[in-house]
C-alpha cells in the first residue's frame, strides 16, 4: 500500500500560484511565437530600414490565404483529424465565386459570397461524413477527396478567369484607421473571431477538443464522437471557403489549380503549437506562425538569397523551431 501511495502522489495541492505558473506555461508557446515575430520585425528593419506600412500591407495580403488555410487545418487537427482537401476546396470555392461573379452586379456578389461560404461548409461536412462512416483513416479519405474537389474546380472553370466584385477586392486593399494596420489583417481577425470565439465557448467546441484528446474518454463522457468530427470538418470547410474568397480578393479572378496551401497549413499549425495528435492548441498560434513564415520568406528575399535556397532555409527553420519546442515540452514533462 505504501508504494501505491508513492506512485499515486499526493492530492493536487500547491494552491493558486502553481496554477498561475502552469497556465502561463501553457501559453508559453504562443508567447514564444509573439517574441519570435517581434524579433523578426526588428531583423527585417535592420536588413531593410525602409520596411514600413506598405510592405506590412502587402505581407498581410499575401499571407491571407495561407492564414485561412492554417486556421482551417487547426480546427480539424484539434479534433483529432487532418484535412488534405483544404487546397482543393480553396480552389473550388475561388473558381465558383469568380464564375458566378463574372458579369453579375455588385449586389449579386453578396449572395455569391454567402453561397460560397455555404458551399465550403457543405463540402467540409461531406468530407467529415465520409471519414466517419467509412472509418477509413482521415488522411486517406481526405487525400482521395482532394482529387475530387480539385477536379470539380476544373469543371467549374477550365482555365483561370471570371471576375471579382469591386467591393470584395476593396475589403483588403487599404489600411484600417491608421497606416500600420492593414485591412487584410482586420478582415482575417474578424472572420476567424466571429466563427471561432463563440464556438470555442460552446459545448461543440469543448467536444472537439475532447474527441481530439481522447476519443474513448470523450465517448464515455457522453460526447457524440461522429457528429463532433463532422462538425469540425464542416468548420474547416467554412474557413477553407474564406481562404478561397481571399484568393478572389487578392487576384481578382478564379484559378482552378490548387495552390500549395494544404501543406503550408500543416507547417503553420505545427509551428503554431497545435499537436498533430489532436486535442491541443488554438488558432492564435497558427496565425502567428503564418506571419512568421511569411516574414522569414520576405527577409530571405531582401537578403537576395536564391529563392530555391530560401525554400530550403524555410524548411530547416521550421524543423529546428518545432524540435526545440518539442524538446522543451518534453524536458518539462519528465522533470
Amino acid at each position: 500500500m505504501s508504494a501505491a501511495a508513492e506512485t499515486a502522489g499526493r492530492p493536487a495541492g500547491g494552491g493558486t500560484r502553481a496554477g498561475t505558473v502552469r497556465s502561463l506555461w501553457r501559453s508559453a508557446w504562443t508567447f514564444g511565437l509573439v517574441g519570435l515575430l517581434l524579433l523578426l520585425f526588428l531583423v527585417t528593419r535592420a536588413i531593410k530600414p525602409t520596411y514600413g506600412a506598405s510592405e506590412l500591407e502587402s505581407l498581410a495580403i499575401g499571407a491571407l490565404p495561407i492564414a485561412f488555410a492554417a486556421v482551417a487545418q487547426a480546427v480539424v487537427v484539434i479534433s483529432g483529424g487532418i484535412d488534405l482537401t483544404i487546397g482543393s476546396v480553396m480552389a473550388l470555392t475561388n473558381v465558383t465565386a469568380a464564375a458566378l461573379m463574372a458579369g453579375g452586379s455588385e449586389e449579386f456578389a453578396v449572395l455569391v459570397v454567402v453561397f460560397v461560404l455555404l458551399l465550403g461548409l457543405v463540402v467540409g461536412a461531406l468530407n467529415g461524413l465520409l471519414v466517419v462512416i467509412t472509418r477509413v483513416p482521415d488522411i486517406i479519405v481526405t487525400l482521395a477527396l482532394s482529387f475530387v474537389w480539385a477536379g470539380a474546380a476544373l469543371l467549374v472553370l477550365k482555365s483561370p478567369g471570371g471576375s471579382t466584385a469591386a467591393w470584395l477586392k476593396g475589403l483588403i486593399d487599404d489600411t484600417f484607421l491608421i497606416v500600420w494596420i492593414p485591412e487584410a489583417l482586420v478582415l482575417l481577425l474578424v472572420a476567424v473571431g466571429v466563427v471561432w470565439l463563440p464556438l470555442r465557448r460552446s459545448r461543440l467546441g469543448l467536444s472537439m477538443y475532447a474527441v481530439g484528446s481522447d476519443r474513448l474518454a470523450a465517448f464515455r463522457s457522453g460526447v457524440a464522437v461522429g457528429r463532433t468530427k463532422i462538425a469540425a470538418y464542416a468548420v474547416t470547410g467554412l474557413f477553407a471557403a474564406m481562404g478561397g474568397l481571399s484568393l478572389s480578393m487578392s487576384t481578382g479572378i478564379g484559378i482552378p489549380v490548387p495552390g500549395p496551401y494544404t501543406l503550408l497549413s500543416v507547417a503553420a499549425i505545427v509551428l503554431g503549437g497545435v499537436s498533430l495528435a489532436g486535442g491541443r492548441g488554438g488558432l492564435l498560434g497558427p496565425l502567428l506562425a503564418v506571419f512568421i513564415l511569411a516574414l522569414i520568406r520576405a527577409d530571405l528575399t531582401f537578403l537576395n538569397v536564391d529563392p530555391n535556397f530560401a525554400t530550403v532555409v524555410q524548411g530547416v527553420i521550421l524543423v529546428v523551431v518545432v524540435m526545440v519546442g518539442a524538446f522543451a515540452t518534453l524536458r518539462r514533462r519528465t522533470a
Partner: protein
Amino acid sequence: MTDDLLLEATGVAKRYGAVIALRDASLGVRAGEVHALMGANGAGKSTFVKILTGAIRPDAGTIMLRGRERGMHSPDEARRTGLIPVYQEPSLVPDLDVHANLTLTRTPINAFRRWVEDLGVLHLDLRTPARELPLAILRILDLARALAVEPDVLLLDEMTAALPADLTEHVMNAIRRQREAGRSVIFISHRMIEIAAICDRATVLRDGQTVGVVDVTKGTEEQIVKHMLGPIATQPAATRTGTGARSDRLDDAVTARLSVRSLRAGTKLHDVSFDLRVGEVLGIVALEGQGQDELFDVLAGSARPSGGEVHVDGRPARFGHPADAIRAGLVYVPANRAEALLMQRSVRENIALPFSAALNHWGPIDTSTEGRRIGTAVNRLQIDTRAQSEVRRLSGGNQQKVTIARWVAGGVRTLLCFDPTRGIDIRTKREIYDLLRELAAAGAAVLLYTSELEEIPLVCDRVVVIFNGRVVDEMAAAGADEPTLLRAAYGLPPGALTPEEIVAEAAAVEAANAQPDGSRPATMAGVGEPARDTEGTALSPGSRP
C-alpha cells in the same frame, strides 16, 4: 426473486464472430444494496460491464431499470437513465482541465466539489488539465463526477485498484453513503477483502454465464471461489509425475539464470522478486492487471523499470531495447500473436527474422544454414506447413508455434511466455506444454504466465503468485490445484500487503451499524474473521518467500 429490483439484466448474450463472450448473463440489483460482480479472468465480466453501460450492444437479453425496459445505445443514454459507471481506466479527457471535463458531462460543479473533498482530495484546482494529475486523483475525480449527479446505480469497475489505503477508505465510506440513501452500487474488485467489507450480495460469472448469486456473509469467499471454478474444483488436481522430483533436485545453490529483485515499473508493478533457475519452468499466476504485463515488458526490454534490479546469469542487466534482452538470451512469446509475427510473410521468414536480421549479418543471407535451422525448428514443433506462404493463414495454434519456433531455431536460453496458450485448441496446448518441458530439460529456463490455472501443475516446477504488484506467494507447482492458486491470486490470505486498516475499520463500522440497524447484522458480522480463517488454508500448500 420478486423483490423490487432497481436494475435487472436477464439473458444477456454477446458474441464476437466465433467467440462467445457472454452466453447468459443476468444481474439483479436491489435498491440500497452494494452488489459485487465477480468472475475469474475471461469470465465475461468486462463485456457485461460494457453492455450495462451502453458502450456495446448485446445480441440478446433485456436490461430493466426501475421495472422499465430500456435499450442503452450509448454511454450518454445510460447516463441519462441513471446508471453511471466509473471505469477501470480514468475517463477524464486528458487535454481538458477538470472544469471543462465537468462541463462536457454536464456535471454540477458544487456537488462535484463537495464529493471531491469528502473523498479526501483537498485543494483541487479545477483549472488543472487532467493530464497533469496523478492516477489515484483521477480515479477519485471520476468517482466524484459520478456521485455528483446522484446516480440510481453506480457501477465501480476496479475502482480501488490504483488507490492508496487512505483514499480507499474514503471510497468505501462514499459507497456506504450511497447505500444509506437507498441507491445501489455495483462493485467490481479483485480484492475479496473489500467485497467482504462492503458488499451485500455477489453475482458470480463463469464462462459468460451467471452461475450463482450469493449473500456475502462469513465464509462467502469459499462459496464465491467455488462458483468461479465450477465443477473442476471438486476434482483433485492432476499431478504430474517426474517434475516433483525435478524441483526437489534443484536446490537454491544453483545459479539463477534470471533473478529479479524488488522490481518496480509503471503504476502497477510495485515490488517483485524471484529467481528463475536453469532447467526450470517457473509459473507466474496473477489476476488481470496485477502488474504481470509490466513485468514481462521489462524483462523483454520493451519497457524500463522504475526501480529494482534484474540479473542475468548473476550479472546486472538493463535493457533499453528488446534487442538488448534478446542479446542477453531473454526471448519473449506474447499472448497476442499479431504482436510477434509478420502476418503477411512466410513461416520461413518469420522464424528466420530474429537471427537473420541481426545487424552483424550484413550481406546476403546464408540460406542453406538458415534453411537447416528453420527445418529443424519446424519439424520439432510439428508446425503444419501447408499454408506456410503467409503466416496469417495458419491456425492460431500454429501461429503460436511459429513464435516459439523462431526462438528455438536461434537456440533459446531463457524463454518468457506470456499466456502462450490463449485461444488455442487443446491438442496444440499439449504440444506447447511438452515443448516447454523439453526446452527446460535441455537446459533452458522458462518463465510462464498463464491465465489458465490448470496449466500450472502440468507444466511448471514452481509458481509465483503476484497480487497488486507484489509477490504474495510461492509454492511448488505439483501441489498447486486451482482453488489454491485462485485463492492465492485473490490475495487471500491477506498477509503483509493487505490493508489491515480496512478490515479493522470495516469491522468497527459494522459493530456500530449492527446495533441500530438490525436488518443486516448477519450479513456483515465479523468481517475480519473470514479473511483470517482462510489465511490458514490458503497458506498451507506453499511457503512465503
